[in-house]
């Protein structure tokens, strides 16, 4: 492929996005990689960088998962494994099928074909609430705050195994009060961490978009999950808060949780993920450690076929235009050839 030389690396592509405080300038929330982060990277070092690569200790394994919407095949994942205790980013251009794949894995949608296991047990045809109870919780790209419940009630709702949620014991406060109090303490602790404690008594519907994202994530953590699936957790959250949110996500890993998240911001992906899986047009096209993946021509192809961030410097722009033109040329040639 002759165009390869001028093709930018994805890393260059989003040099454009100015993220103050990136790199080492946020020691307050991210005091260097923790022991689990190092362990996760160490373990993943020897994993082959090919789509569907087997992992040493996979917690979630999907096989031949296909979802069609009429004529459109939104998801067609041959094989993919997610390493336990690691932060895995799922990236890909708009419409790549990331959200649909999340929906399938968490029981919110049914695949046309395929099977997948979580901690070794099959999750095919398991309803969404059972998936959550097994320890795999997800958040939504379009945030789902429960508007006419207060922030603290949203949080309490997240706790699992509540005696007071059973109809017969619900009427007797004595039975559930103790549990409610301890859930509330845990909720308050999380709210503090997510800087929502000032909003405790407000209706969730009165929060801003970014605050709702935070609330949704905090609420999901109330379920005490072992695997957290976040669909664009940072979208709409301001840069300062993003830093602390990144810190929280890293904390999850330090606490032994597995995190799979969808994100479009490459800086963020590079910052926190141990492994990156790239989807395009429903399939996994590449996977590997962040830096390797972002330099992968297949990934750049996938992105340039879709959209990419606006460049900042003129050199960057010129470089990208050249790359895009080369791309177009190649596509035209292919079309003619067909």
């Amino acid at each position, binding site marked *: 492929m002759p165009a390869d030389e001028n093709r930018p690396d994805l890393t260059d592509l989003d040099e454009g996005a100015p993220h103050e405080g990136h790199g080492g300038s946020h020691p307050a929330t991210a005091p260097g990689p923790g022991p689990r982060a190092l362990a996760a990277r160490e373990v993943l070092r020897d994993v082959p960088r090919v789509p569907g690569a087997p992992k040493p200790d996979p917690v979630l394994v999907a096989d031949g998962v296909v979802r069609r919407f009429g004529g459109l095949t939104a998801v067609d994942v041959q094989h993919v494994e997610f390493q336990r205790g690691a932060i895995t980013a799922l990236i890909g251009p708009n419409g790549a099928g990331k959200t649909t794949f999340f929906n399938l894995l968490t029981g919110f949608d049914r695949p046309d074909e395929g099977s997948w296991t979580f901690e070794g047990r099959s999750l095919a045809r398991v309803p969404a609430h059972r998936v959550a109870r097994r320890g795999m919780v997800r958040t939504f790209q379009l945030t*789902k705050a429960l508007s006419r419940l207060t922030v603290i009630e949203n949080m309490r709702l997240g706790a699992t195994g509540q005696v007071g949620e059973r109809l017969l014991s619900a009427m007797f406060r004595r039975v559930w009060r103790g549990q409610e109090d301890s859930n509330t303490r845990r909720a308050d602790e999380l709210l503090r961490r997510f800087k929502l404690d000032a909003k405790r008594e407000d209706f969730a519907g009165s929060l801003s978009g970014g605050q709702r994202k935070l609330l949704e994530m905090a609420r999901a953590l109330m379920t005490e999950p072992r695997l957290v699936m976040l669909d664009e957790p940072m979208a709409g959250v301001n840069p300062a808060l993003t830093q602390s949110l990144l810190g929280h996500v890293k904390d999850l890993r330090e606490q032994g949780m597995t995190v799979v998240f969808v994100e479009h911001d490459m800086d963020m992906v590079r910052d926190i993920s141990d492994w990156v899986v790239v989807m395009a047009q429903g399939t996994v096209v590449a996977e590997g450690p962040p830096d390797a993946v972002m330099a992968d021509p297949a990934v750049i192809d996938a992105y340039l076929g879709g959209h990419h961030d606006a460049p900042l410097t003129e050199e960057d722009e010129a470089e990208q235009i050249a790359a895009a033109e080369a791309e177009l040329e190649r596509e035209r040639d292919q079309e003619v050839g067909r």
Partner: protein
Amino acid sequence: MDWSSILGNTARAAIGLETVIYALAAIGLNVQFGYAGLLNFGQAAFVAVGAYGIAVTVTVLGLPFWLGVVVGLVAAVLLAVLLGIPTLRLRADYLAIATIAAAEIVRLTVRSATLRDQTGGSSGLSGFAEGFYDLNPFTPGQSYGFGPWVFGARLAWILVVGWVLVAVCCLVVFLLMRSPWGRVLKGIREDEDAVRSLGKNVYAYKMQALVIGGVIGALAGFVFGVGRASVQPDLYGTELTFFVYTVLLLGGAARVLGPVVGAAIFWVALVLIENVLVQAVGAGYVPDWLMSSTQVGQVRFMLVGLALMLLMIFRPQGIFGDRRELAIDAR
């Protein structure tokens, strides 16, 4: 115009039989619609099932009246489950359509000629309430109460039982809705996928809400049937359901006492307007070409409708509603 009679009738309406019936039916609907967000447009069917449960058990089967109450309640549970199984997994509007149809099916079935021996056809059944009035602790022929609220022994008895039922139902709703169970229900009303993602079995909760609301609706039917000492199928039509919605929205949905206050206001308004119109027409204050005394029945509903429209414009959250919540809806 006889204002003392107008005001007396109006005052009695505030705690009268209709108020009890509509309050109970609306408390049930509040559990379903107000808290869980279930669009049950067939509350009339649950009321009918409660009323006919007693009527058929006593008159046709010759069994004691308390057994009729049990039959009515069990039938309400069955109806709720039957309606819920196919529709609660679907989008909210399917339940609305299914319930509206089910209510008509129930009404048309009990009024069908084929079942005349069992349900009395279009004229209904009567003579099943004596078992209830045999238990009356009040002495027949005497009247009870104070001020304008003086009732005969029979009416006093059913009103006491009715208001005790209202109080118990309100207490149950209060206890349930301050509990984590009630929180799940309110969560489902807001966004059931979010609640599902937190590990709650949304389907089971919706079913429980539908059943509880239906059973409370059947209690309304019990007061309705026994209070009139008869059941007639056409009293359980779709307009009953719509009035129950009116009552609920008037008082404020998702408030424990909303349905009770709503029912009282609804019937006070209706009785006041009717009495004033009847007297005004009788005294010749209203010209004949505008309204005759036989048209008062319709006109009062028009005026109540107008009053409701004004209320919804100026106080859309109902009497007890919270404006803060409403502001959120508008986003």
